[in-house]
């Protein structure tokens, strides 16, 4: 078994955040894709991981607890992945709760804004449903607006109404997320480093400075292998991992039917030996 090729994907989303597969559906997909190691990394939520843990059987692929925190500080926005933490640790719970609290605050702010400014109202059941979501966000509101006929489509809901609500953009700070993961015995990793919080392009010196700052907080790894990377981008991130002796991880950012991303598409070839920094990462979580 030791010689069997490792197929790995450490970055995917379930219905616990904005993916379209439930945790159990996701487990089926993971097995179909022939993955041998996987992790579920919902945005600011770990309930999906707990669901997977509950249904995992001994012959299933190796599963790592994961999470992806959206963070922000005066210098920028970041997605911090956390792996192999103890889900029962108050340390990780505190970040999840903080993230959730901010999301609910922003949700309430937006509901008030839409009501006052445009007269868009939602029923109490709908509001309760939104509050019950593990991580309610703008897309959920947009969907609801379309259903009510307030907006013709999701895109217009964003551009014409939702984006006008300048809420106080609340997010946990990166050091809060990193400390939370470390405190729960996990490894904090910077997601898709070149893409910032997903929609930026950060390269060269700017990326270098960013990584060093996060290392000061305790960052341990970089997501070097990522479905959205070209070879050139991957090479940049790999050279940073080498320069600062960081772990590397590999993830697709699979979202189910929401995006064209294919599960297991990380830029790592299926049969190649695991890169050393990634092997070391897996070994560190074994201990």
């Amino acid at each position, binding site marked *: 078994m030791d010689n069997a090729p490792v197929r790995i994907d450490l970055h995917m989303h379930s219905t616990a955040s904005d993916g379209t597969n439930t945790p159990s559906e996701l487990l089926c997909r993971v097995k179909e894709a022939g993955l041998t190691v996987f992790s579920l990394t919902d945005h600011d939520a770990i309930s999906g991981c707990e669901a997977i843990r509950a249904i995992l059987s001994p012959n299933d692929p190796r599963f790592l607890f994961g999470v992806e925190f959206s963070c922000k500080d005066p210098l920028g926005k970041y997605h911090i992945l956390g792996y192999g933490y103890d889900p029962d640790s108050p340390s990780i719970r505190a970040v999840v709760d903080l993230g959730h609290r901010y999301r609910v605050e922003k949700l309430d702010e937006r509901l008030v804004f839409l009501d006052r400014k445009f007269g868009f109202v939602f029923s109490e059941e709908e509001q309760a449903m939104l509050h019950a979501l593990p991580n309610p966000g703008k897309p959920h509101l947009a969907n609801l607006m379309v259903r009510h006929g307030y907006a013709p*489509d*999701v*895109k217009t809901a*964003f*551009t014409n109404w939702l*984006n006008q609500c300048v809420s106080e953009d609340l997010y946990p700070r990166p050091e809060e997320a990193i400390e939370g993961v470390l405190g729960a015995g996990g490894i904090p990793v910077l997601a898709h480093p*070149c*893409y*910032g919080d*997903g*929609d*930026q*392009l950060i*390269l060269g010196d700017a990326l270098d400075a960013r990584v060093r700052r996060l290392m000061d907080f305790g960052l341990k790894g970089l997501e070097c292998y990522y*479905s*959205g990377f*070209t*070879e*050139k*981008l991957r090479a940049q991130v790999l050279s940073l991992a080498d320069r600062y002796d960081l772990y590397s991880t590999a993830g697709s950012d699979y979202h189910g039917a*929401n*995006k*064209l*991303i*294919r599960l297991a*598409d990380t830029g790592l070839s299926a049969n190649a030996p695991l890169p050393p920094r990634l092997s070391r990462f897996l070994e560190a979580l074994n201990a």
Partner: protein
Amino acid sequence: MSISLIGRIDSSNAAAVEETLVAQIRDGEPVVLDADKLEYISSAGLRVLLRIRKAHPEMRLVNVHEEFYDILDMTGFLEMIPVERAYHTISVEGCEVVGRGANGTLYHYNRDTVVKVYNDANALADIMRERENARLALVLGIPTAISYAIVKVGDSYGSVFELLNARSFSKILAQEPEKFDWCVDEFTKMLRRIHETEVPAGKLKDMRETALSWADFLKDYLPEQAAKKLHALIEAVPHDSHMIHGDYHTGNLELQDGEVLLIDMDTLAVGYPIFELGSIYNALIGFSEMDHGVISRFHGFDYETAKRFWSAFLADYLDTTSKAKVEEVERKARIIGYTRLVRRSIRRGGLETEQGRAEIENWKSQLLSLLETTDTLLFSRDDLEIEASAENLAEVQSFVERRLEAADCSPRALMQLGLAIEEVFINIASYAYAPGTGNATIRVEIDRAAKLATITFIDSGVPYNPLKKRDPDITLSASERQIGGLGVFLTKKLTDDVRYDRRDGKNILMLIKHL
């Protein structure tokens, strides 16, 4: 199929854009994304492109403007996705038309540049192919102009060429009739050069295949026997890996600073030269057979000049003074020419107008009568068949010299070969048919790549292998030497190799010389 990317693509709409794109892409069709109207793309948008690229590896991006191009470069997307940059837009309104071809119109954009504007709005692939062809031709030694930019012209595209003070042969013929002979000469020389150029396999399409498709098209419009014969004639033409231009006419030769340049390379192909002669016949005569005004509208000179030009060119090309020979090859060329004209006219709706029907009827009836009297489309072009007599030596020498000169033979090699040819030809004239007379055939073959010329002498006279003669003892005094042996010895000294073969009752002597 081209899909337009419009406005901004960022995280707020990337998912929606992705959905729209995926819905528009049809399986099995190449995905071309037009970025002309793209104002901004964020990394979320880039990733949408990457994902589409993964699902459709043949995806291309066209009309990419500077800023977007830089981002693609910086992020390594350029290495993954074929990208064509956006093109500068120009207008050719009021510009002089230099020529009109099958695929586009050539304009004088300003003093030093011409723009070829393609008729087809989806011409980018054609333009790229023409550039490739031009590069290939240049590498193989054909002087041509390579476009240095692609521009947008109205709804279509154009290729920009630098032509400093260039004038087309059409214009020269129209304005300076005294240069007629010079034009014929240069026109022939360039064509020989093209036809002597060997093209590496697979680089250009095979004209024979194209001609077969014309014949197939005509099946429904010709009597069964004639259609069968046409097909068989073309099928019997052997594969030939030498270059043909495909649209060779006086409008596609330009004189620039004393140098003759070939332009319009999009029809470059390989094949037997009869296919080329067919299209030259059309350009000069075929198109204008019914309406003599066509030639002056296209080339500026009249029908009579065109006819004279054709005959003079063909004699020059075949290197013959024999009228019968010229007429024989002309008949073969016309078979190809009419086949092309009838098909072209039918495809352009010619059968729907009275004038069109009359033209088609004319071409078709000539085609049918030619088919009755023709058994092969092959002709000998590098052979000179001539009576083996001492008086004809000058003609033989000039026949060989012209070919060697066209192949950039060094003056030294030219002189040495001249002497060797004299030895061999006079020998044939003196002994092969004595006391009677007979013909000799002289063939010149040039291998440009190896820089070798092979000159073959064929006669049907008495068997004679000059190589069997022992080399003379040149230390002996003149009076003591054997007569004849010295000539053979000299021939061997003057060339790099001499070979003899006796086949089908013929003496075949080959002189091989490095140029």
